[in-house]
């Protein structure tokens, strides 16, 4: 048929161009929404082109699935609160990965691999392996983020050995299938091992490592799609999958760097186990605490303030109160900026989205590397729900579990204020020397409640 020979490759190529531009235009918030539109057009061209292919004759199942997918997808997109974005992302990695794994499975059972070349079988095995393991791993990540499962890393003796063993077994059975695809009894075994490996992979991962892991799973889901492109001989799939794969990969590298840790360390070195006990033994050192009234006065008389938010802010849902405070201080001529550590929150860029949702203008959101050189000129550093990312121990104490991790240098500010529920150590269970310093004021309480009293005090401070 003519359509397939001439029009289809052009449609697919246009789709690929749409995807490339979509990512390119994300380089600035000003052009980003245009990017989404070209991405959507690209997807539409690809889907319409595929529906018109002569091999596709049976439409009713496809249309029902389209309808169901849309019916479920739209409410998810609109109802979900922004604090739940990490869970949604993990869930969609799971869906995407399962889709490619199911397609791979179907391709295999179509002819039990007979007539497929070795190369195609390799691609098919890679596609299904990554698909299945990413599916269960993402569901586990989803469970931890949603707090259906314990966020704490779970470790046991010989864990890495077991994990590597299961992976080696899955890969081994996969290899056997590549060489003798007709042994179809191996396929369910291969599937089960891949699924199991995904679960085992996430068990030792704690909440603070989620940004890296989510990015890595993003990468796997993309690579699985790309492998499908090799099986189906479809360049569009290869390109789109490779874009997704490299994106996830780069993000996870950025996350690892922001924690001064390696991939292997994140995946195999469960974190925060030993330190908890060590920190618990620490004697109670004196801290300076202050009330909302004091805090309001200090903020009011400052020239510039840098707010450093962490996951605790998201948990307390304090971002809207924070915006109120931002507005009041700005009106009074105080320059307020927000310093965001790359691993703040539960996924890359999470804090930025929450602050943007609260209507904080994005030109006030600063990256760590840009704000640090200015920290010594800052009057007040206000830390809300962040802990490890401002811990000076990372710079000074070579024995600290977070030694070498780049931090936002809040301690350089003239006054440091920390809103915190109590003196309990943060997620990684590491004590923070910042809290005991001379120029640090601890503001004890729930972030949202405390900020609203600060806002109240600020409005009482109206200059007569």
């Amino acid at each position, binding site marked *: 048929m003519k359509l397939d020979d001439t029009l289809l490759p052009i449609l697919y190529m246009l789709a690929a161009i749409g995807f490339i531009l979509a990512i390119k235009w994300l380089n600035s918030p000003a052009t980003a929404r245009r990017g989404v539109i070209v991405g959507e057009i690209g997807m539409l061209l690809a889907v319409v082109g595929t529906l018109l292919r002569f091999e596709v004759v049976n439409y009713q199942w496809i249309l029902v699935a389209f309808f169901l997918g849309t019916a479920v997808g739209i409410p998810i997109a609109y109802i979900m609160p922004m604090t739940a974005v990490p869970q949604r992302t993990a869930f969609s990695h799971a869906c995407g990965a399962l*889709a490619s794994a*199911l397609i791979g499975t179907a391709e295999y059972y179509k002819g039990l691999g007979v007539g497929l070349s070795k190369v195609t079988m390799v691609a098919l095995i890679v596609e299904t392996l990554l698909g299945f393991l990413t599916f269960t791993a993402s569901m586990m990540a989803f469970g931890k983020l949603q707090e259906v499962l314990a966020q704490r890393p779970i470790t046991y003796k010989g864990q890495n050995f077991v994990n590597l063993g299961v992976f080696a077994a899955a890969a081994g059975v996969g290899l056997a299938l590549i060489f003798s695809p007709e042994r179809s009894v191996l396929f369910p075994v291969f599937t089960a091992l891949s699924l199991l490996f995904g679960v085992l992979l996430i068990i030792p991962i704690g909440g603070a490592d989620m940004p890296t892991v989510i990015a890595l799973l993003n990468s796997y889901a993309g690579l699985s799609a790309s492998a499908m492109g090799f099986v189906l001989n479809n360049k569009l799939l*290869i390109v789109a999958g490779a*874009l997704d794969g490299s994106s996830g990969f*780069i993000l996870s590298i950025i996350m690892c760097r922001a924690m001064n840790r390696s991939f292997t360390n994140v995946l195999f070195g469960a974190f925060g186990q030993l330190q908890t006990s060590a920190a618990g033994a620490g004697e109670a050192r004196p801290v300076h605490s202050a009330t909302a009234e004091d805090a309001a006065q200090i903020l009011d008389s400052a020239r510039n303030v840098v707010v450093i938010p962490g996951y605790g802010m998201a948990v307390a849902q304090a971002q809207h109160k924070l915006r109120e405070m931002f507005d009041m201080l700005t009106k009074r001529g105080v320059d307020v900026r927000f310093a965001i550590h790359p691993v703040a929150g539960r996924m890359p860029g999470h804090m930025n989205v929450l602050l943007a949702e609260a209507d904080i203008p994005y030109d006030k959101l600063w990256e760590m590397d840009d704000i640090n050189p200015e920290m010594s000129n800052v009057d007040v550093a206000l830390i809300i729900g962040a802990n490890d990312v401002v811990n000076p121990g990372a710079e000074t104490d070579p024995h600290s579990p977070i030694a070498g991790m780049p931090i936002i240098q809040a301690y350089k500010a003239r006054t440091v204020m920390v809103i915190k529920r109590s003196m309990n150590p943060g997620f990684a269970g590491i004590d923070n020397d910042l809290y005991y310093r001379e120029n640090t004021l601890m503001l004890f309480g729930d972030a949202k409640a405390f900020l609203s009293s600060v806002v109240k005090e600020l409005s009482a401070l109206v200059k007569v």
Partner: protein
Amino acid sequence: MGNYEFDLWVFMLAAFLGFQLIRGVSPMLHTPLMSLTNAISAITVVGAILLTGEKDASTLSRILGFSAVFLAVLNVVSGYLITDRMLKMFKRREPEKK
């Protein structure tokens, strides 16, 4: 088929292009980036459609294909919508409203 060699080249070049493009993305937008690439990788819907719409597909193929179309469409729809919803929130404050 000698095709796979060509495919590998495509993959290699696309991966490098991806690295360059992603480096240019503002860290502020890393969350929307992830949901956008997620929607893009739901291009697997192409494979799912081919599988489900085939003339004499087995029941197994149809069921797996149907589920895959559903999952991929779910990702396409929610991925793009959510990315746009997030990007809409990134605003600059208009010049000094007093």
